[in-house]
């Protein structure tokens, strides 16, 4: 059915692909995973632009080869929550650069829905024979995401803001400075990631960032953090790079204005 296409089609053209939802899993009261009928073959940490037709197109980490895990926060995510099996959305991606996997004993630090890109990393790393320790933080017990996936991949420690599970307090408090991890991987609210950055050796840590994304392909500059494009050079950056940047200090809103983090 594709006859007549020229040699330049395919790889170079990246219109949204139609992705049919085959299953929706409720992970927490505010977070759902949407499974699609097709795999996107991502590297852990890569994301897609999810187009809810007629509404908006928003960035989402791939939490499985064929799924995104979404927290309901506003118009686009709410519209997504109205969709179920048989519905479809448009997907551009996978986009950006994922986590750089280093051998050894790795530490994952997940805050809230920040677990989404980390869970496939945990699975991949453990299947490659690496030792994986995960620290999961959430507001409350019910909001813990992917606990079982992390447990299967290794050791898990938990912190909740209300103490309903694990340690009472922030996930950053679980970081054990005496352990010599080969690499630390982190995703969560920027404030939390900044705290992690301040606590660990920056050259050994990688952070998956959130910035306002428009084009998603490194052209428009909307997502820039100093000169770095979150959509293309990231979303994963090394702590070294972030240390000297505006990370944790301010971000840009849709207009490009600086906003305090």
């Amino acid at each position, binding site marked *: 059915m594709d006859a007549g296409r*020229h040699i330049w089609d395919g790889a170079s053209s990246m*219109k949204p692909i139609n992705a049919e939802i085959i299953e929706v899993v409720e992970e927490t009261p505010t977070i759902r995973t949407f499974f699609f009928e097709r795999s996107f073959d991502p590297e852990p940490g890569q994301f897609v*632009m999810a*187009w809810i037709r007629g509404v908006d197109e928003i960035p989402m980490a791939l939490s499985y080869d064929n799924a995104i895990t979404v927290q309901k926060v506003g118009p686009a995510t709410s519209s997504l929550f109205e969709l179920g099996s048989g519905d479809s959305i*448009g997907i551009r991606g996978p986009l950006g650069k994922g986590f750089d996997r280093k051998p050894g004993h790795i530490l994952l630090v997940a805050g809230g829905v920040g677990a989404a890109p980390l869970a496939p990393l945990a699975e991949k790393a453990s299947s490659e024979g690496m030792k994986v320790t995960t620290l999961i933080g959430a507001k409350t017990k019910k909001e813990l995401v992917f606990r079982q996936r992390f447990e299967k991949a290794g050791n898990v420690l938990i912190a909740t803001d209300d103490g309903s599970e694990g340690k009472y307090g922030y996930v950053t408090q679980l970081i054990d400075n005496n352990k010599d991890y080969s690499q630390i991987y982190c995703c969560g609210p920027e404030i939390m990631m900044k705290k992690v950055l301040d606590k660990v050796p920056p050259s050994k840590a990688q952070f998956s960032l959130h910035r306002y994304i428009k084009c998603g392909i490194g052209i428009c*500059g909307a997502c820039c953090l100093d*000169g770095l494009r979150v959509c293309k050079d990231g979303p994963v950056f090394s702590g070294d790079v972030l240390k000297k940047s505006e990370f944790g200090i301010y971000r*840009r809103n849709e207009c490009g*204005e*600086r906003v305090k983090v």
Partner: protein
Amino acid sequence: MLSLTLTGLKLKNPLMLAAGIMGTTGGSLKRIADSGAGAVVTKSIGLEPKSGHSNPSMVDVDCGYLNAMGLPNPSYKNFQHEIDTAKEGGVPVIASIFGGCSLDFSQISIAIHADAFELNVSCPHAQGYGAEIGTDPILVEEITHAVKNTVDVPVWVKLTPNVTNIKSIGLAAQRGGADAVVAINTIRGMAIDIESGYPILGNKFGGLSGRAIKPVAVKSVYDLYEALDIPVIGVGGISDWKDAIEFIMAGAQAVEIGSAVGNNINIFNEISSGMEAFLSEKEWTLEDIYGMAHQV
């Protein structure tokens, strides 16, 4: 061997970053300056902060991109420090500005310090801005004139190809006192998602950029070179050194590069070394090839 003086600005090479490409933050502009651009043009800046059209705002079509960003920008009131940061890159920083009338343009240009201004009267997808005024020679002349009266740095006018006769708009800019024209902005276009019937862009239509539009841009530059006495700056679809040479032969004194930066942030260095190698092999100077297509 690629250095030149463009409307009084000294450039180490004729390759500039086009407006709207990594141009919202000082840091990203500086990054491009550091990677070999002869000058950088900022995102188009307006009167008030603007969040732009809703997403999807960019889509990769065959051989190019469609975008309808909708001129998101933090407004001129929040932009001087970005320009100042960009200046650390050591190359001229050109402020692209837009507005709905000549008063808007004057108000912005008076408040901003930059090495030159590029007037965006050519964005094809912003209601009341851009091409909505850039298709009218009287408005273009008036706006150019107003900014020229306000600032004492060079003023360039960026033209839309979505007109019956681009020369008449170029002539209007020249009459208004423009120091150069820039051609072309994007060509209006549209893509539809056949799975659903939805226009893909949030704004429904947008502007086509990238390789697809190169022949249209080359022709515009060629025509403007013949019609005008002021320099023409070429932009549209440049993605390698051969393209840059082609534009200069068509009559561009310098070029801007947009879409191709996305996949190749090092493109300015690569194009300048490619051009240098070509010119040495041919034993030509930049001056020799400037407008060459008109002389053969």
